[in-house]
């Protein structure tokens, strides 16, 4: 279909969104099945006006963004060098990769009780759980990035007298960058997921906690406000990563995607 002119109906997209919101409003209004329990669009708008003007909103958002960024930064700082070494050095791979493979199938959410147990403060537990979420995609994509480097580059660098350090910097790290960026973007997505779960179950403050608190206090429209705010901030942060990625590896636009 690449050459087939792709038609597009921009107006239809608007219609589609409007239809979705109208369906939601009608289902709630007429209490179809159990939709009577779900907050209506208008109540969500009112709750949004209320919540977004409060100081709580800024505190919750700041707490969540801080946790996500801290966890993401730590997993990048640990995961990228680890992944580069695993991809590059056979002995290191043999020593560490089986452990990563062993722990990888455990979803970050399953670490919540252990995370609470490991750390004296809830703050650190939440960051730890988010860290688990972004660590594996970052490490695995870094390894994949190194594996995908053409072997001739290594040989060429050696022939030209490059030292181990230079090979690492100019061949391994540079060659793996596009894949690392994918790992960073995927990691950010999983980070938000882990964050919401950790804040709901263990947290204090934060948008995930706000959603859960609104549920316990029966302020249901505010749940939807929280979901939308999380969605917007999460999408915004992913967009920033993609933008930075496109600046860093201009030679591989297609890899980072749109």
């Amino acid at each position: 279909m690449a050459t087939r002119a792709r038609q597009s109906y921009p107006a239809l997209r608007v219609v589609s969104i409007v239809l979705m919101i109208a369906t939601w409003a009608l289902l709630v209004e007429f209490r179809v099945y159990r939709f009577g329990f779900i907050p209506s669009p208008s109540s969500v708008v009112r709750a949004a006006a209320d919540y977004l003007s409060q100081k709580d909103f800024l505190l919750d958002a700041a707490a969540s963004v801080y946790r996500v960024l801290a966890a993401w930064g730590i997993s990048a700082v640990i995961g990228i060098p680890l992944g580069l070494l695993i991809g590059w050095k056979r002995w290191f791979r043999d020593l560490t990769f089986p452990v990563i493979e062993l722990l990888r199938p455990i979803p970050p959410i399953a670490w919540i009780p252990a995370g609470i147990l490991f750390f004296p403060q809830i703050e650190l537990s939440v960051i730890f759980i988010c860290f688990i979420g972004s660590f594996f995609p970052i490490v695995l994509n870094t390894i994949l990035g190194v594996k995908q480097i053409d072997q001739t580059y290594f040989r060429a660098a050696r022939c030209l007298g490059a030292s181990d350090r230079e090979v690492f910097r100019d061949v391994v790290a540079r060659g793996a960058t596009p894949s690392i960026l994918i790992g960073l973007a995927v990691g950010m997505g999983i980070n938000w997921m882990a964050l919401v779960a950790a804040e709901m179950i263990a947290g204090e403050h934060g948008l995930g906690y706000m959603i859960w608190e609104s549920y316990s206090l029966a302020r249901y429209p505010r749940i939807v406000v929280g979901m939308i705010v999380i969605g917007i901030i999460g999408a915004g942060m992913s967009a920033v990563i993609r933008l930075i990625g496109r600046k860093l590896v201009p030679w591989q636009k297609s890899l980072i995607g749109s």
Partner: protein
Amino acid sequence: MAKVADRLLATAGATPANEPARPSVSTTLLIAQLRALGSQVLAVALFVLVWWLVSTLPSAIHIPSPVEVATSALSLDFRGFLGDMLLSTWRVGLGFIIAALVAIPLGIVMGYSPLARDLIFPPVELFRPIPPIAWIPLAILFFPGAEWMIIFLTFYGAFFPIVYNTIAGVSGIRSNYICAAKSLGASEWTIFWHVVLPAALPIIFTGLHIAISVAWLMVVAGEMIANQGGVGAMTWQAYQTTQYPLIFVGMAAIGILGYLSSVAVRLLAGIIIRWEQ
């Protein structure tokens, strides 16, 4: 190589007598596999050793040692544990299958027709940035029981990767293939069945592979919150009742089940898309 050499020698009539047996291809392969296995065992043993050392450190927080975890696993009520594992697997499986049944046809339609895509896709795009876990409170409000709430969560988590990959698979097909089929007089249906679907299947399976792991993530979150059976609830209860070693048994069970189900998806892919291997 050694085999070829042997055969050449045999046809030449010169049987190598009293020569030390060369390692055949299969033995060198076996040695390589044994070495890989050895390094894996070594790495895991090192990990357990480090874990054990950390657990003996005197610190404010007590981390259960590998021995404690193993003993608590052995002294477990095995029947109940198996029941929890089966319940979680059932919830993941049902949500996953419903998601596949809804998302694959939807993705095919959207990948095929720009009209359908512009009509259906915008809400999907709007929902995507919201982490599936953030739906838990609404799901509790909407569904009368914990069972359907959890199955909805696994369904919802699995839905997005399948839909996105199906669209990518169907719309990414090379137009040459379609043109070739058309010029050979294939009908729309034949094109779909013999060109589009086989080309899209590998990517659809990538989506299914991601989806099953998201479904496991969702089931754990849902079970921890609902606290009504399943491995997630078991792990959370272990924490609440301060049976800390049991937490790690639960995590291990979740990891093993997650791993086995992704192996199952890969096996299914191997059967259905034989030509890819």
